[in-house]
Structures are given as C-alpha cells and as structure tokens.
C-alpha cells in the first residue's frame, strides 16, 4: 500500500486538538516533517527478520521471559518471550494493531517492551497503538525503540497509560535511532489518586524523533516524576513536547530534562504545565538544561506555566549553554585528554537525569548508550 501523504495530511494524522496549537507545536520541526511528507512509504513488513546485531541490542539476560517484541509495530510471536509473564500480566493484540497490556498486582521484575524497526526494499511506515493499564500494585516497564542501521522506517506509536488509584509505574524508555529512521510517539497517561508515574526517557538519534508526553494528574495527590535526556549528533532531530495537566488537588510534578546537541543536530524541548482551577495545593517543578557542543547545533527550549488555581507552588527554569571551559582546562591540566575530558563532562551533565533509575545495571546501560550516541572526537 503506497501512499503520498501531504504535510497537512501528516499533520492531521499526527496532530490533535485545535489546528492552531497543533501546527504551532510543530514549528521547529516543519522542515523535517515536510521531508517526511514528501516521501513515498510502503507499509512496513511485520514478518521481517531481525538482524543479529539488532537482536543483541535487546536480548538482555535480566528480561528474558518477560519480553514483548514488536516488529515494525506488530506483536511478534517469534521474537517475544513471555514465558515468565504470569497471570498478573496479560499482553495481547486486538484489532487495528492495538495491543493491550494489563498489569494487576505487584509484579516485581520489569516487563521489557521492544519496538524494532527493520527496513523494506523501499522506505516504509508502521503504525501501532498500545494501552497499558496498571490496575493495582507497582510495575516497571522498560520500553526500547531501535532500528537497523540505515533503516528508512517511519513509525508512529500511540500509547495510553492508565494508572489506577494508589498504583505506581516506573517507565524507562530508551529510543535509539539511526539518522535514517523517524519515529512519532504520542504518550498519554492518566494518573489516578495517590498514584505515581516515574518516567525516564532517553532519546538518541533519528532524522525526526518527536515525542508528545501528555500527563493528566487526574486524582488528588497524583504525582509525575519525569526525567529525560536527548543526545544528538549529525543531522539528528529530536522534538520533545511535554504537556502536564494538574486536574486535582495536591498533585505534583517534578520534571528534569537535559539536552545535548553536537555537529548539526537540532533539539527542541517544550515543557508545558497547566494547573487547572480547583487543583489547589499543587506543586510543579520543571528544570531543563541544554548543552551545545558545536556552533552548528541548535536547541530550542520553552517552558510554559499556566496556573488557574490558588496556593500553587511552581518553579521552572531553562538554559542553553556550552561546556564550561574552566572545568575542561582543569581536567586537562591533570592529564586527561581533551576528548575524554569532554566526554566526562557531557556524561556528568546527563547523570542527574539517569540517577533516578534504581537498577544500577540498567542505569549504566543507559549512560553508555547516551555516551555512544555522541561523537567521540573533540
């Protein structure tokens, strides 16, 4: 099925809400979006074989038996390994490529959800939707997006998380794309009373990587902790749009994002927090810091705070800067070569974001991937 979607059609498909705000949110990604809209895509092959190199990237020993693998957006029986997923977790696939996951009760070890994109003979597209319900207890989901080197694949994923009252979800998301691949993600989460969503997002690479994270703090004392970092090089383009709505009393959000861009990469961070009327006693904190490693890289950041309630505590700040030359010289003066000194400082810059990942092994893996995503030369 070949299709030639125009930019407007693509916007309609990817966008939502009223036309003005929708177009506005794509302001910095227009060029990347137009390039996609002018390209012919065939439907991506759901039965495609995964190359060994890709398999190795997600075959982590600690998630064997608890792994859900989707190939080009479609649940793959062949690559999934759900032997260890008990009655408390159910994963399935329904019409329209929507696969629901339901987690009931404390399930201990994390569930690993892998989205692998593999190329067809021509540029290809896939679309998928997922619904995740945390009905009770505490759960951890590791989400991983990856694509074969050189894969001209454009994926769109919609995902809805429903956190029932009193539940907690730790969501750790690693998205690594080659410069040839594009991904659009719309993540909607509804957090119930006294429930907590702790999310860590690592975004690496991609010709266009757009992530809309919309979180409704819907019940009293609902809480969001969002940590995230993008690390970009070459002509990578990442566009992150956070939209957090405090809809009930005593809700809290704590958002810390970092961005690093080298060479000709482009990064966008838009962090909007709305405290609705009646959501008194809410607490909102947003910090976004960015690092430009090259004069040709660009990062745009925009924190937006709208408050319609009383007795709200809110703080936000955003910066774009460069590596501290004084610190670089200090490291070099002790014998550390320039390239390593830069790497140490970039890693340090990102470390605050990853510090919240409790599993040391996983934290180290994320840090390594982020470091690998940046050029090693000075």
């Amino acid at each position: 099925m070949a299709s030639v979607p125009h930019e407007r059609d693509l916007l309609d498909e990817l966008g939502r809400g009223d036309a003005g705000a929708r177009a506005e949110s794509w302001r910095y990604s227009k060029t990347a979006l137009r390039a996609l809209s002018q390209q012919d895509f065939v439907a991506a092959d759901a039965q495609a074989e995964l190359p060994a190199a890709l398999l190795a990237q997600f075959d982590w020993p600690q998630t064997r038996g608890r792994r859900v693998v989707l190939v080009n957006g479609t649940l793959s029986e062949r690559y999934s390994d759900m032997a260890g997923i008990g009655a408390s977790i159910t994963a399935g696939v329904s019409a329209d490529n929507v696969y629901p996951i339901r987690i009931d009760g404390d399930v201990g070890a994390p569930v690993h959800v892998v989205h692998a994109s593999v190329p067809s003979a021509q540029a290809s597209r896939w679309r998928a939707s997922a619904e995740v319900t945390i009905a009770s207890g505490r759960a951890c989901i590791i989400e991983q997006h990856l694509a074969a080197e050189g894969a001209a694949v454009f994926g769109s994923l919609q995902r809805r998380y429903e956190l029932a009252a009193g539940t907690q979800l730790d969501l750790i998301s690693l998205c690594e794309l080659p410069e040839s691949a594009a991904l659009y993600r719309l993540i909607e989460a509804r957090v119930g009373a006294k429930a907590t969503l702790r999310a860590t997002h690592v975004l690496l690479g991609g010709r266009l990587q757009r992530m809309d994270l919309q979180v409704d703090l819907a019940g009293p004392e609902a809480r969001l902790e969002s940590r995230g970092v993008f690390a970009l090089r070459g002509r990578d383009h990442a566009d992150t749009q956070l939209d957090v709505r405090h809809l009930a009393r005593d809700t809290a959000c704590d958002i810390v994002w970092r961005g690093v861009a080298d060479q000709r990469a482009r990064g966008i961070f838009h962090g909007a927090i709305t405290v609705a009327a009646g959501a008194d006693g809410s607490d909102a904190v947003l910090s976004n810091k960015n690092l430009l490693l090259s004069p040709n890289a660009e990062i745009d950041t925009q924190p937006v705070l709208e408050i319609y309630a009383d007795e709200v505590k809110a703080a936000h700040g955003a910066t774009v800067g460069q590596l501290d030359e004084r610190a670089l010289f200090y490291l070099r003066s002790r014998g550390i070569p320039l390239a390593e000194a830069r790497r140490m400082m970039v890693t340090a810059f990102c470390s605050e974001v990853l510090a919240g990942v409790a599993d040391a092994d996983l934290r180290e893996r994320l840090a390594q991937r982020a470091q690998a995503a940046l050029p090693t030369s000075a």
Partner: protein
Amino acid sequence: MLKIENLHVRVAGKEILKGLSLDVKAGEVHAIMGPNGAGKSTLGNVLAGREGYEVTQGSVVFEGRNLLDLEPEQRAAEGVFLAFQYPVEIPGVNNTYFLRAALNAQRKHRGEAELDSMQFLKRVREKLAVLHLKDELLHRAVNEGFSGGEKKRNEIFQMALLEPRLAILDETDSGLDIDALKMVADGVNAMRSPERAFLVVTHYQRLLDYIVPDFVHVLADGVIVESGDAGLAHKLEEHGYAWIAERHLPAGAGAGAA
C-alpha cells in the same frame, strides 16, 4: 629542568609578562612573590597551557622540550602540575573517578601500566592521611561543596597522588587558616626531593615560613626585578612592595601595579 627566557605574554590584548626569565633546577624550590597585578597567576597559567594567554616572545623549555608546543594534558603527563588559585567545581564528575582517570591517562602517556582500582585506592589512602582529608571527599563530585580550605588541600592531595616533576602552586595559601596552611606545607615538604622542583607563587611571606624556598624572586610589572635567598621574603614583609618599586621602577611606573 625549567628554563624560561625573555617571556612576553599578552592576555586580552594587554601585555602582562614583559620579558620574564627564570631558571629552575631539579630539587629546587623557587618562590615568586609580587604585588597584585604583577603577572604571578599569568605565569602559572601560561606554564600549564591555559587558553587565552598569547606568548608573543621568548621561550619555555622543560626537560629539554619546548613546553609551549604541548597541549595542557601533555604538559601534565610530562610532569607539570598547577595547583589552582581557584580550583574549579565540576558537578557530576566523581572525585575518585576523576583522579584515577587523570593518573592513568598520565601513566598511559608515559608508557606505564595503568593502575587497577585496588592499587589506586591503596595509593589514595596513603596520600589522604598526609593531607588530613576525609575519605568522604572522594565520593563527592570534584570540588563540589568543598570549603575553601578543602579545595586547596585537595589540590595538594592531587599533587601528591600525581607526583609531578615540577609543581606550580598558585597562591595556594590564600584563604587558608593557619592549620590548613601547615597541612598544605607538610604536604609540599613531604614531596621535596632531588628530582622534583617547586614554583611557589604567593603574595605573602607567611607560607614561606613553612615551605622554606631556595630562591625568592620578586615579580613586578611583568618582569623579575630582584632575586635572592629566603631572606628576601622577610625583607619584603618588612618593607612592603613599595620598597621594590622604589628600587627598580622609573618614577611614575609601578606604583599603579602595587
């Protein structure tokens, strides 16, 4: 070991060093004293290879090599160490990790085997004891949240660990109380050896009561105007820098620098 000849250095278009010459041999301790603005810190920075210091004339030869040709990290690996006047805080970079990376980078440069973490920690514990630094500082980020005294002691601790051949101390005494000053001096004195030289840059003579130099040089308006033994430091303490200005600078010049 270190031979500086007729060194002229510009910073932001302004000439700061105006023909400085200095000869330091292995085993010697040289003190560089001088009023504020004389160019003391410029000397340390230019030797360590900081950017923004333009050498317009003269030469610096260290162990037979042209020091000015080397990158800062190469100078360090060749044995040059600068104890900073204002040590830099580097959030997120763990102190132990930093020190081990530095030591092993230097060893690698010199073709020596890198130290594993056990060997490294053994060495660290020995040196910590000398400087009376708490173990806990190792687990923190580089200089982050350190008191002024801790930062300065951390510089000397790094020096002890890296065992340079030429150590330049840039106003390491500034902001130290008498106890910290003694610890710093003990750290330096413990390292004095026939193979190692020190360049101690200071504004006050006080530090030199504890680190007794072989030579004292007075730097004023970008040149060394007077050299002598440790006694020169005491004379300066007695008479002040104005005394030097009167003796060496034409009328009208120098007063501004003091």
